[in-house]
Every structure is written in structure tokens, then in C-alpha cells.
């Protein structure tokens, strides 16, 4: 099963796990399965009208899905999906 890496700021919404396994054939389905498993995460990834938020970047392995087929990008077993949100801390 593909695995989604959960970044620190979002781990509190997935029972503090660093990664979640999903059943899915595409990026869009993988994210849907993720928020179905962890509904608290939904508002952090999607806008109220169901679009992925602009500051949330999704990577399939080391490629930005915006430069693949976006949410239609195919995923297979063993693939690693990353959610890369912006963080700003420095002090």
C-alpha cells in the first residue's frame, strides 16, 4: 500500500503517526482515504469547497504532483507520498 508521510504540524490530527498507509490508485484517492481515516485532518488539507489548499504541497516520491497529473497522478504499492506544508519558524 502507498504510504503518506505526515509532517509534524499535522501529526496531531492523525493520532501522532509519522506516516499513514492508504488504499488508493491515485493521489486524489489517497488523500480522500487519508481524510476518511482521519476526519480532523480535512480542514487542514481542503478548503470548504473541497479543493486542496494552495499552501499544501503534495509530492509523489520526490516529484511535486502539480508537475505530474495533479490529483489524477497514479500511485502504486511502495510509493511514498509526502504532504509538505509551509513552516516559518526560525527563532
Amino acid at each position, binding site marked *: 500500500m502507498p504510504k503518506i508521510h505526515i509532517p*509534524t*504540524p499535522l501529526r496531531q490530527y492523525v493520532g501522532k503517526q509519522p506516516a499513514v498507509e492508504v488504499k488508493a490508485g491515485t493521489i486524489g484517492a489517497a488523500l480522500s482515504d487519508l481524510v476518511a481515516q482521519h476526519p480532523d485532518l480535512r480542514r487542514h488539507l481542503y478548503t470548504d469547497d473541497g479543493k486542496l489548499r494552495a*499552501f499544501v504541497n503534495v509530492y509523489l516520491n520526490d*516529484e511535486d504532483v502539480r508537475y505530474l497529473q495533479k490529483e489524477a497522478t497514479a500511485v502504486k504499492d511502495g510509493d511514498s507520498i*509526502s504532504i509538505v506544508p509551509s*513552516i*516559518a*519558524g*526560525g527563532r
Partner: protein
Amino acid sequence: MATTLEVKPEALTLSNEEIQRYSRHLIMPEVGMEGQLKLKAARVLCIGAGGLGSPLALYLGAAGVGTMGIVDFDVVDYTNLQRQIIHSTADVGRKKLDSAAEKLKAINPFLNIRKFDTRLSSDNALELFREFDIIADGTDNFPTRYLVNDACALTGKPNVYGSIFRFEGQASVFATKEGPCYRCLYPEPPPPGLVPSCAEGGVLGILPGLVGVIQATEVIKLILGKGEPLIGRLLLIDALDMKFRELKLRKNPGCPVCGTHPTIKQLIDYNEFCGIRGEEKPVETLATDIEVEELKRRLDAGENLFVLDVREPHEYQICNIGGHLIPLGDLPKRVNELDSSQEIVAHCRSGVRSAKAVDFLRQAGFKKVHNLAGGILAWADRVDPKMPKY
């Protein structure tokens, strides 16, 4: 590709003392006399002398960077010392600029330090950046991140980027001619409040050390023109699992600041862009707020008030006022532990999370809920001075 330096390294020489000091650089072929003179000619601007700025400035100063600018308006406090290693206990209360400059001069008296005692803004950034070759971003908030990026793109200076949260960091080199900028990766900032700051979320003390040293490494590589800089790559650092991962970044042709048809040609209002009035946004006092003195008086009078503490269990261990602990995130599933007929006072550390708890409870039909203004910090300041503050 080496960064263009305005001061020509060929015009400089090293004194015998400098040759001795930089001996370990001079004997390696990747640096040598040529590289050391490039370092001496280089002018690097560090934005912030805090968590990332501390190791960054210390290593760049030691390495022989000729001119270092530091922009900071802050004062050293006790909570900084766990990670901001350029400052020491005796510096608490001093300007970070003065404290940092003193340490840097002690390490390397050849260093030319330029202190800018100001908050970086749209009014001063372009002028400031033009006087330097490379900008190292060690700030702590989204408006300044976008400001640094745009000012770098507009002045053509590389933005050596690092950022941290808890035990996770990111590093990259943005805004070079051939590479992507911060906006190519994050076209829009997150709405305020969705991503917690280090002050709210905490940060492992060593993490800015790890990330700041990666930034210093990238600055030095850019000056020397050696190795593979982090251009077009985002390095993700997970200190807890000690895993480093790398993601590909692409220059977005539609990027408003570095794309083929840029729409941002001058600096904008970054607080407005990020939807906030600044990092230290004061929490609004609402009619439902209760002051710490009033809570103390009413508790002492034996009134039947239910004190709800919405912080995390590890915070409760640091200090508490005996409230019933339900962390904010658990409130929806544990709301049945509360009695809506009773008057409830919710509190957290500073009043931000408890304000969210009060909103939630009101929506859930609770009518008699108050937010303790200023949280347990205000309690420590005004009611119980023996209580520790964190």
C-alpha cells in the same frame, strides 16, 4: 556556479595572521587562497540573530566571510537560551544585535560587522539587500519569509532559506537566476492560526543548530562556487527519526515574482498578504473574558466555578491552577465531561487556545463560558508570582 561578488577578491590579500587563522581552509584545494579571498570579499546579510541566525552567523564569521550584516530588533530573553547559542545568560535583556556582534568579534576580529537595529520591512528591504551578495533567511514568520523572498528575487540576490518546527526543518536556496523561489513552492501563505509558531508549538533546541549549519554550508558553497547548492531542491530534515529527504523543486513559469510574466515588480504589504496584522497579534478582549484577579477573587469566595485547562498534559506538569485538563484537540470528543449548567472558565497558556475552546463550547450550546484573559501567564504575573512562566 559562484555568486557574483561586488568586491573583487583579486584586489584583496590576506595578512600573515589571517593566513594562520584560515590554514585549514587554505590547504584544501576546494578553498585555497582563491576561495579564502572570495570569502573575504563576500558580504552576507543574516536576517535575524535567533535560532537559525546563531549558528549561521557563528560559522560564517569563523570561516572568514568578510562582511556580515545582521538585521534584528529583538532583545535576548531567558526562553531564547535553550537554542540561540550566540547569546549567553549574561546577555538577557541586551539587544541581540549587540550580543551577537560581541561574540562574532571575539571569534574573528577580522570580521566587518554591520548592525541593522530595525524590523525588516517593505520600506527598507531593497535598499538593504543591494549592499550584500547573499541573504540568509533566519526569520520566524510568514510575512517576513515572503518579504525576504520577493526582495531577493527583485534584487537578484540568492535567498539561503531555512525553517524549523518542533523537530522538523526545511532548507533550500531560492531566487537564484536559474532556480525556483519560495513562491514557486508556496504561492500562498497558510491562513493565520493554522500553522503554529515555535512560540506556540515549541522547537527542539538542537534543530535550529542543524538547519542553521546547513544554511551556513550553502552560503559558503555559493561564495566559493563549489559543489552542488540546494538550488531546485528542498531538503527535509526530521531530527526525531534522523532522516533527511530531498524533494525536487521547479521554477514555476507562472510565478508572480520570478515567472516569465511577473506581476509583482515591487514589494507589497506582506502582513496584509498573509492576512494578519503581525506576528504578535494581540488577542482581542471579548465580553466573555474574565480577568485573572476576578477569577482569583471568585474562587477565594468559594463560588462554584469550573476551571477548564485546555493545554497539553506536559504543559500541565510545568504549572497549573488545579483546572480540569482537557486538551483543546480532545475537547470535541470529551465535551460530555462538562456540565453546561455550570459556569466554566477556560484557560490555556496565553489565552489563544482557550478562546478557541470558548468558541467551540458556545457553538455546542454552552452559555456560561468565559475565557481567562492572558491565560496562566497573566495568572503568574498578577496573582501568583511564584508560578513558573514558560
